[in-house]
C-alpha cells in the first residue's frame, strides 16, 4: 500500500448511547442512540465531510472520535508514524500524546472561548496541559500561530469579548493548530458566521491544511460548504452512516434515498423549481423505527425496509451505502 492511501484514522463500529433516565432513582429506561455502529476511515491529508440534519449524530461522532465523549462500544484507531493508538483504551498519559495529534474546532466562537482567559492563555492552554511548551517558548509558539491564522500579535493579551465572530473563530483555529496536530475535527466552524467572513475562514482552513498536511473531519449541515471543503462526503441520518462516497459522485448520483431528499432540499441560486420535499421529520433517537431508520419518510420503502435493518455495504469501488434497494433505484442529484 502506498503511503498516500494509508488511513490516518479508522473508526470501527463506533457506538455512543446516552441513557434516558427517569424518576427519583434515575432508572435508565432507554438509550438515545446518537451514534450507532459507525465505521469509516480517513486517509492522511484528506478532508472527510460529514453532513446530516440536527440530531443526526454528526457532532456526537466528532466528539466521540476525539474522546470528549467516552464511546459506548467500538474502536477509534489513530495511526501516527509506527504508533497505533486505540483511542478508547488510552490511559491519561497516552491521551496527552493523542491530544497533541488530534484537535477540535468548535461551532460557536462565542461559547467556545473562556471569557476570563486572554488570547495568550487560550491559545497556549493546549501546549501547557499536554506538556509541550511553557514560558517564553510557549509565547513564541502562540505568536507564530497567531500570525499564521491572521491575528495580530499586539492582541496577545486581549480578552475574547474584544474580538468579532470571525476573529474568535481564528482564535479557535489557532488553539487547535498550536500543537501541530495531524487530525483536526472541525464541527460546523463557519455556521455562526456571516457569508463574507465564512469565505475567509474556509480559505484559512484550506491554506492551513495545505501547509501542514492536516487531515480534516469537517462536520457541517451546509452541503455547499462541505462540497467546497472535502474530498469525500459521509451522510448521516439518525445516528447511522447512510452513504459514503467521493463528493462529486454523491452530488451527481446519490445512492441512498435520504441523500436524494437532502440534496433536493438544498436551496439553489437562480431557479424556482418544484422540489421533492420529504415528508416528516428526523425520528426521536430514543424510539427509532424498526428496520431502516429512514423508512417512514422514504418514498421508495418496501416491506423489507420496515423489518430488516440495512448495513453499510460497498456497491462500487469507494462507494458505500446502507439501503436494501440501492441497486434498483436511480436517484436524482443536484
Amino acid at each position, binding site marked *: 500500500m502506498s503511503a498516500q492511501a494509508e488511513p490516518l484514522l479508522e473508526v470501527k463500529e463506533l457506538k455512543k448511547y446516552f441513557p434516558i433516565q427517569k424518576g427519583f432513582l434515575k432508572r435508565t429506561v432507554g438509550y438515545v442512540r446518537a451514534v450507532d455502529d459507525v465505521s469509516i476511515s480517513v486517509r492522511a491529508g484528506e478532508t472527510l465531510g460529514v453532513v446530516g440534519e440536527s440530531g443526526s449524530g454528526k457532532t456526537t461522532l466528532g466528539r466521540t472520535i476525539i474522546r470528549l465523549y467516552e464511546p459506548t462500544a467500538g474502536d477509534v484507531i489513530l495511526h501516527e508514524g509506527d504508533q497505533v493508538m486505540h483511542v478508547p483504551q488510552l490511559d491519561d498519559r497516552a491521551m496527552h500524546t493523542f491530544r497533541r495529534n488530534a484537535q477540535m474546532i468548535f461551532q460557536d466562537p462565542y461559547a467556545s472561548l473562556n471569557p476570563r482567559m486572554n488570547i495568550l492563555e487560550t491559545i497556549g492552554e493546549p501546549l501547557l496541559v499536554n506538556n509541550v511548551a511553557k514560558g517564553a517558548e510557549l509565547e513564541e509558539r502562540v505568536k507564530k500561530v497567531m500570525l499564521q491564522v491572521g491575528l495580530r500579535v499586539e492582541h496577545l493579551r486581549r480578552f475574547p469579548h474584544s474580538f468579532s465572530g470571525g476573529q474568535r473563530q481564528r482564535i479557535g483555529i489557532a488553539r487547535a493548530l498550536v500543537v501541530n496536530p495531524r487530525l483536526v475535527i472541525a464541527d460546523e466552524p463557519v455556521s455562526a458566521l456571516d457569508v463574507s467572513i465564512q469565505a475567509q475562514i474556509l480559505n484559512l482552513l484550506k491554506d492551513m491544511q495545505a501547509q501542514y498536511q492536516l487531515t480534516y473531519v469537517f462536520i457541517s*449541515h451546509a452541503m455547499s460548504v462541505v462540497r467546497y471543503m472535502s474530498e469525500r462526503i459521509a451522510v448521516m441520518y439518525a445516528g447511522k452512516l447512510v452513504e459514503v462516497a467521493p463528493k462529486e459522485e454523491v452530488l451527481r448520483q446519490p445512492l441512498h434515498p435520504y441523500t436524494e431528499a*437532502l440534496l433536493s432540499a438544498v*436551496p439553489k*441560486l437562480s431557479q424556482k423549481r418544484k422540489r421533492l420535499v420529504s415528508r416528516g*421529520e428526523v425520528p426521536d433517537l430514543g424510539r427509532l423505527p424498526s428496520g431502516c431508520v429512514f423508512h417512514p419518510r422514504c418514498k421508495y420503502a418496501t416491506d423489507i425496509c420496515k423489518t430488516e435493518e440495512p448495513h453499510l455495504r460497498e456497491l462500487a469501488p469507494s462507494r458505500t451505502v446502507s439501503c436494501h434497494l440501492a441497486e434498483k433505484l436511480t436517484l436524482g442529484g443536484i
Partner: protein
Amino acid sequence: MTNDNNVLIEVRNLQTYFYLYEGTVRAVDGVSYDIRKGKSLGVIGESGCGKSVTAQSTMRIVPSPPGKEVGGEIIMHLEKEPVDVLKLEANSNEMRAIRWKEISMIFQEPMTSFSPLFTIGNQIVEAIKLHLPGLTKKEMRERTIELLDKVGIPQPSRLIDVYPHQLSGGMRQRAMIAMALSCNPKLLIADEPTTALDVTIEAQILELIRGLQEEFGMALMYISHDLAVVSEMSDEIMVMYLGRVMEKASTDEIFNNPLHPYTRALWRSIPVIEGELKRLETIKGVLPNPYQVQKGCPFFSRCEQRMPGLCDEARPPLYQVTPTQTVSCFLYDKNAKAGPAAIASQSVATS
C-alpha cells in the same frame, strides 16, 4: 407617490436610528422600496445591515427607546385611502388595526415568538379576537383549527391545545405562520423564518409559504442572509449594506448580472452546490464601525473599484440601469468614463 394602483406599500427614504450610550447607530439610513400586491421582495444582507430593522420599522415594532424612526414615509395603500404608517403612533389604535390585519410577520426563532404560558390555539384565537370581532368563541376555534390544518399541522383539532414547547421547531414555525395568516394580511414579512431549521424542514416551510402566498394573494417581504433561499422566494431582490440599499433588481438580473461591487463580491464569496469549484474570493476588511457616520459610500473601505475623492466624499445616488435594476454606485454614472472629477462636478450640479 406613484399612481400605480398595484402598489401595496411604498417606503421612501426610511431612516431608523438607535440612540445608544456609545453613540447613534444609523441602522436604516435612507431606504426606499415598493412592494406590489401579491409580489415578493427579497432582502439580502449580512448581520448588521439593517434588514431586520427595516422590516420592524414597517411593522412599527422597533423597540423604542433606543430605536426611533427619524425620517421618511411608509405609505400603505389600504382599501379606503393611503396611510402613512410612520405618522401613526406605534401603540395607537390605528396602528394596531393595521398590524397583524394588514401586515403580519413571522420571525426567526419560533420558540421565542410564542408565549410559553399559553397554548398555540389560545394565542391564535387571541389574534383573531382582536382583529376580527363579531365571531363567536366556537367560530374562532374552528377558524384556528382550519388554519392549523392549512399550514400542514397533523391532527389540528388535538394540537390546537398543546403548548409551544411540545412542538418541534418545524411544527412551531408552521403554527407561527398560521397565526400570521389568521387575519388574511395583505403583506407577510418573513424575517429569516427558516434559519433555525434543518434543510429538509426548511424546504417544507419554503414550499408552504410559497403555496400560501399564491392562495391568499399576499405580498411577501422575505429577509434572509442566505442568497439561495431568497432567490427561490422572491420576484425582486434588494441588497443592503450598513443601513443602505446597494442594489435592487429582479431576481434574474441580480444573480446573472450583478452590478454593485458589493453584490459581486458577495456572490463570489459563497460556496456553490453546482458548477465549477473555484477558490472563494473573500471581501477584504471588516464592516466599518457602526457609530461612525459615513459621508460617502459605506462600502468604500472594502471596495476594489473605489474612486478616492469621490466615493468617500459623496453618497452615490440610485442609478436606474435597466427598467428593473437600480444600483447605488458611481461606476454607473453616465459620466463614469470621463473619470471621477466629471461625476463629481455633475452630481454636485444636479443636487
